[in-house]
């Protein structure tokens, strides 16, 4: 069960580092080239979301990403420190109303650039087939799994 764990201070720049690591490990784990773009985007969404949660709730505590390569599955788990309610209150993709999002809400200034909380999770669930979002005392876990051929073991000679 080869595993890489990355913890990082909740800063946007580190989301890039997390994407880079996940991509390199996924490739090395034998995730199909066609799927790597999806991995990159999904990992970026999960980590950006976690960074946002931390910046508002607990800027000092690190975001954790765990990459696991076992048998024929490559799994990425991103853990933030946000409480249960956060994940529960977030809309599923079906509830997103693109028209409403973009309505010319000229009366409210400043115009918010952030999409509603949960938009990132909605993107992930639209993108990744095998995804589970759970909450426990540690915070919220986003766990995404892709098929892979295990090529990560040390050279066999």
């Amino acid at each position, binding site marked *: 069960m080869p595993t890489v764990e990355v913890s990082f201070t909740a800063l*946007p*720049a580190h*989301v*890039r580092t997390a994407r880079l690591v996940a991509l390199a490990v996924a490739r090395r784990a034998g995730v199909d080239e066609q799927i790597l*773009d999806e991995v*990159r*985007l999904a990992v*970026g*969404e999960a980590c*950006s979301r976690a*960074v*946002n949660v931390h910046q508002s709730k607990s800027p000092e505590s690190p975001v954790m990403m765990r990459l696991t390569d076992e048998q024929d599955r490559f799994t990425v788990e991103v853990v933030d420190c946000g409480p249960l309610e956060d994940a529960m209150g977030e809309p599923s*993709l079906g509830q*997103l*109303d*693109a*028209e409403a*999002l*973009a*309505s*010319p*809400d*000229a009366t409210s200034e400043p*115009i*918010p*650039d*952030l*999409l509603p909380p949960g*938009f*990132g999770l*909605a*993107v992930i669930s*639209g*993108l990744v087939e095998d995804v589970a979002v759970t909450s426990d005392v540690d915070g919220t876990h986003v766990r995404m799994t892709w098929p892979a051929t295990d090529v990560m073991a040390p050279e066999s000679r």
Partner: protein
Amino acid sequence: MDLSLSTRTEGDRTVVTVGGEIDVYTAPKLREQLIDLVSSGNYHLVVDMESVDFLDSTGLGVLVGGLKRVRAHEGSLRLVCTQERILKIFRITGLTKVFPIHASVDEALKASD
């Protein structure tokens, strides 16, 4: 890769050419650019995304914010994008219904509602 931004005027429209990665790290630069353009009176924007390698929901948020800003002035925000991997995120989020997406800058410049 970092974000690159350049703008030029074509008649009553302003073309913003974006390159690199639009993500939680670089999106603030794009937001600032769009805000600057709108506050200096450019209400018809064409955002050329052909050289964008990566776009996440933070980037989408900034584009949606730009759209709201120009709409507040009866303006428009058109996208130029033919890359499947970038189009995918617009499709997943239903934002293809909100943004006019064109296959070339020329097409976007000629388009009207």
